[in-house]
């Protein structure tokens, strides 16, 4: 039978030399490229784990001098990180070993039943399981990071109690509450009082339509008391075996403020255009009307000085109006600069 060529470094923590030699034989029978360390005491084992030798798997006798059972496992785990641990035990300790399984060890083997096959299988399973769990954890972490490290404020809330279940870093930064504070709050607590009705309307609508995506623009209140306008996107997701609502909030206060400014400028420009059309043309039409009249009258008419006086008045009036438009336009530019 060919040996497994998987390169492995195994630490056997076993104070009984006979048992160790037996284990070593079994391992050498199954693995081709293998390094085996033996440690007889807890302290020696810790030193070995902490050393530069990269341990792939630990075989641990449950009964060592001075330290046994659960306490032993717990102590080892403080140093072993994600190295899989296989417990070796006698018949008398089966109950104990079973309990210890729940502490996160990979497997337990009964010494009297160990043979090369059983040992080999247990080691391979443990390694496989470790890489699978690592993969799962990595995926989980990726998704958690997507939530936690997203630059957009996001949170999860319970659909019936409206309580915050989780809140990401961006939301904590934006709203000013700590995660603990958030977890003692409901989504009502980040709304100004006058917004409750629109919140209730929106929630009712979302429930009835099982809506997904854009929910609308709402006013939220920060811890500082400041109000912001936010675009809300939300959808249902499963979280800890429960359907909860995931919310993404996009602060559009500046955007809305900017639009408001542009709208105000538009009104002003419209005013100026209206002035052009109505106010400027009034004296201008008067001037042209007087000229029409002068053309009609004889040039030596006694009214001529009066009409020329009126021409002058209308000309000055128009001059004032045009100056006024120029200064208003300048004001518009200044406002734009100050706010830009």
């Amino acid at each position, binding site marked *: 039978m060919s040996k497994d060529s998987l390169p492995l470094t195994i630490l056997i923590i076993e104070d009984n030399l006979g048992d160790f030699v037996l284990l070593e034989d079994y391992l050498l029978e199954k693995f081709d490229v293998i390094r085996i360390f033996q440690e007889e005491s807890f302290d020696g084992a810790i030193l070995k784990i902490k050393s530069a030798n990269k341990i792939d798997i630990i075989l641990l006798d449950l009964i060592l001098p001075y330290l046994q059972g659960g306490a032993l496992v717990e102590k080892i785990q403080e140093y072993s990180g994600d190295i899989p641990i296989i417990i070796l035990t006698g018949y008398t300790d089966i109950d104990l070993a079973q309990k210890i399984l729940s502490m996160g060890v990979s497997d337990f083997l009964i010494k009297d039943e160990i043979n090369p096959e059983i040992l080999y299988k247990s080691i391979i399973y443990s390694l496989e399981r470790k890489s699978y769990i690592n993969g799962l954890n990595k995926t989980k972490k990726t998704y958690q990071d997507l939530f936690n490290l997203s630059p957009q404020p996001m949170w999860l809330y319970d659909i019936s109690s409206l309580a915050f279940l989780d809140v990401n870093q961006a939301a904590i930064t934006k709203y000013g509450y700590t995660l603990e504070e958030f977890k003692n709050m409901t989504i009502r607590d980040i709304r100004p009082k006058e917004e409750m009705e629109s919140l209730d309307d929106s929630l009712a609508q979302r429930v009835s339509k099982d809506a997904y995506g854009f929910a609308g623009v709402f006013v939220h209140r920060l811890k500082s008391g400041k109000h912001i306008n936010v675009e809300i996107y939300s959808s249902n997701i499963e979280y800890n075996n429960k359907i909860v609502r995931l919310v993404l909030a996009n602060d559009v206060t500046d955007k809305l403020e900017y639009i408001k400014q542009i709208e105000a400028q538009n009104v002003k420009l419209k005013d100026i255009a*209206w002035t052009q059309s109505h106010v400027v043309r009034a004296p*201008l*039409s*008067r001037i042209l009307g007087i000229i029409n009249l002068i053309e009609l*009258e004889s040039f030596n008419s006694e009214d001529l000085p009066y009409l020329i006086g009126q021409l002058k008045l209308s000309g000055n009036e128009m001059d004032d109006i045009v100056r006024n438009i120029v200064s208003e336009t300048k004001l518009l530019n200044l406002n734009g600069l100050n706010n830009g």
Partner: protein
Amino acid sequence: MDKHVLLIDDDPIFHIIFTRMIKKVYPSLNVNSSLNGKIGLEYLNKNYNINDQYIILLDINMPIHNGWQFLDGIKKKGIMQNNNITIFVVTSSTDLDDIKRAKSYGFVKDTLSKPLSVDSLNHVLKPLIN
């Protein structure tokens, strides 16, 4: 049958220019001046005669009663169907909205832009002269 020209405008200079032009071209016509829509309506209330003929030149932007209020007022009076009043809106505005709005009153004959030339004066006064 008498012929009246009613000028409703808040600009006294326009009154002067306009009455002088009319005196030059049609010395026999009688021109009445009102400085806003309210005075214009009051004049009609007092002096309207179903057998006379009226030409009204109406400005839009005026204090107290503007041109629109005058048009609404005269519509309410129900004298337009007697067919003896012709209304021209005369404004210094070149605003298209104003022109559209003036046209929405079916009985407004035309919209003219200030200043009025002798030609446009002839056009306006034609119904009275013939």
